[in-house]
């Protein structure tokens, strides 16, 4: 470095070395992220029953097989019902709590904040175990709580609600308080103000919350594994159980269906966001 002649040569060599390294890393990272996705997508169009490369015959056979199998469509249905339930529960609870934190001062605010956020940092296996042993033997009106879809919805909300809460707290902070005060001054009851003034202002946040909660629940399978039985098991749980016995391209089809649902949700958020931007600019 102290050599006087190096700066010139280094200056000419360095950019080339750097460009090559950057390119190599870019290829590495793109390949790394895309490999499991592309492999799954390709395998779902395989004709044969074995997972084996190269693929000789292409077909949509396993998609047909998936749709024709009641076990798999039931699991998909369970996944959807539980994900919708989780979205409703966690969005309602999360938005109301975030509004309370934004608008009011109350005792133990810091403690409550930590309490609401804490489940997010807990491993799924711990949450699943806790809920399973606490509600394992509980029956209400002769109906067992354990194994019910409702219990899974609430368990998934333990992860989804803190995220909604975090997202909505940040969103509520961006709204113009004077508009809320004006609505109050004009005599609107708080409930009406909330639904007719506040919620429309944060609609993008609400839509994002709903869809993120939906996606979290749709993808989760460790808690669901602990809390479901044969009739209520979700698609990821069924995938996990059949991966343990034998993998077939049907699993790839299930993965593709899960991923497509998630990307459909993401597109909805984007479309809504663009719509809101247009509204503002108009």
């Amino acid at each position, binding site marked *: 470095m102290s050599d006087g002649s190096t700066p010139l040569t280094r200056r000419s060599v360095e950019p080339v070395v750097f460009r090559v390294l950057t390119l190599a890393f870019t290829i590495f990272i793109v390949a790394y992220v895309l490999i499991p996705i592309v492999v799954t997508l390709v395998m779902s169009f395989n004709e044969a029953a074995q997972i084996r490369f190269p693929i000789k015959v292409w077909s949509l056979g396993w998609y047909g097989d998936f749709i024709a199998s009641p076990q798999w469509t039931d699991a998909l249905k369970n996944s959807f019902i539980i994900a919708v339930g989780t979205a409703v529960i966690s969005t309602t609870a999360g938005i109301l709590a975030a509004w309370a934190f934004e608008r009011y001062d109350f005792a133990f605010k810091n403690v409550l904040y930590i309490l609401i956020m804490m489940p997010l940092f807990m491993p799924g296996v711990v949450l699943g175990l806790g809920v399973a*042993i606490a509600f394992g033997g509980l029956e209400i009106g002769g109906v067992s709580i354990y194994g019910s879809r409702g219990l899974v919805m609430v368990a998934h*909300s333990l992860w989804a609600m803190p995220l909604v809460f975090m997202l909505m707290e940040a969103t509520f902070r961006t709204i113009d308080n004077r508009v809320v005060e004006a609505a109050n001054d004009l005599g609107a009851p708080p409930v009406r103000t909330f639904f007719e003034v506040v919620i429309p202002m944060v609609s993008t946040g609400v839509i994002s919350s709903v869809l993120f909660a939906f996606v979290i629940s749709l993808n989760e399978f460790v808690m669901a594994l602990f809390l479901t039985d044969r009739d209520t098991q979700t698609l990821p749980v069924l995938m996990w159980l059949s991966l343990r016995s034998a993998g077939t391209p049907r699993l790839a089809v299930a993965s593709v269906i899960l991923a497509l649902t998630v990307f459909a949700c993401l597109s909805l958020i984007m479309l809504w966001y663009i719509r809101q931007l247009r509204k503002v600019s108009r």
Partner: protein
Amino acid sequence: MTGEDRAFTVARAAVIRRKRAAPWLLMLPALIIVLIFFGLPTLYMARMSFNLSEGSKLFTPGLSWANYQTVFSNEVFVGAIWTTLQLALMASAATLVIGYLFALLVWLKPAKWRLIFIGLALCPLLISEIAIIFGWWMFFPKNGLLSFALTSSGLISDKISLMYTEFAAFVGLVYLTLPFCFFILLSILDGIDKRMLEAAADLGASPLTIFREVLLPLTRNGMLVAFSQCFIFTMGTYATPSALGPDTLWTMGFLVQEQMLGRNNWPLASALSMVLVVLVAVMMVFTRALATRRATLHV
């Protein structure tokens, strides 16, 4: 409240006092979920870990340290604790390096690439862990894509399998935690003025020196947060290591599931998850203390 309108403030305070119940009413659903479905089960689990497991019953009420003694003296469980910590440490370190380079790449590249890269980084986050496991499950084995690609391109002559190795488990774990690391570090880098790098370069600093003297100190806290986030996440993940790794790769999460669903030993499963929770908590407190101390030192 800077006293711009005193009457208004007083009126508002009155409204707040009248509606003291309002925030609690608003928080009721969230509190029910957190207290009944998180607080109560956690307490129940703590209590359960002191029960005894005898015969075929799920548990026998009791008050003993026996389960914790088992966890800390039985080779299987002690081994699992070490395996979990080691795996989490190695995977988080690798994620930090890859995530840092990835974030640096996106930060330095022209803005037109940014959205594409961010979309790419979102993929592991949005795709179910089970689908990712299955993707690698088709990539590593003897008849998988890796082996096929290597043999057909003539790099190797015999089919190879990396399936059920620690490497496969490692690749899967890093994949899962990469987005956390990437987004935390990118948000930190976005707060740094790029002209500082130009200034350092103009003053004759080599890229490595710029990295060591300028970027590293500015991103140290972010790296710490990213690392601990990955560490906590990896410690609790059991599906990926148990599906991709060798049969002997027993993590704590795997043993919790094994004791709970396979052996029906609820007290032991509870004791093991309590240890897991404590390790996660220690890690969080540790990072927090380290991050704040560093922050005060720099100010």
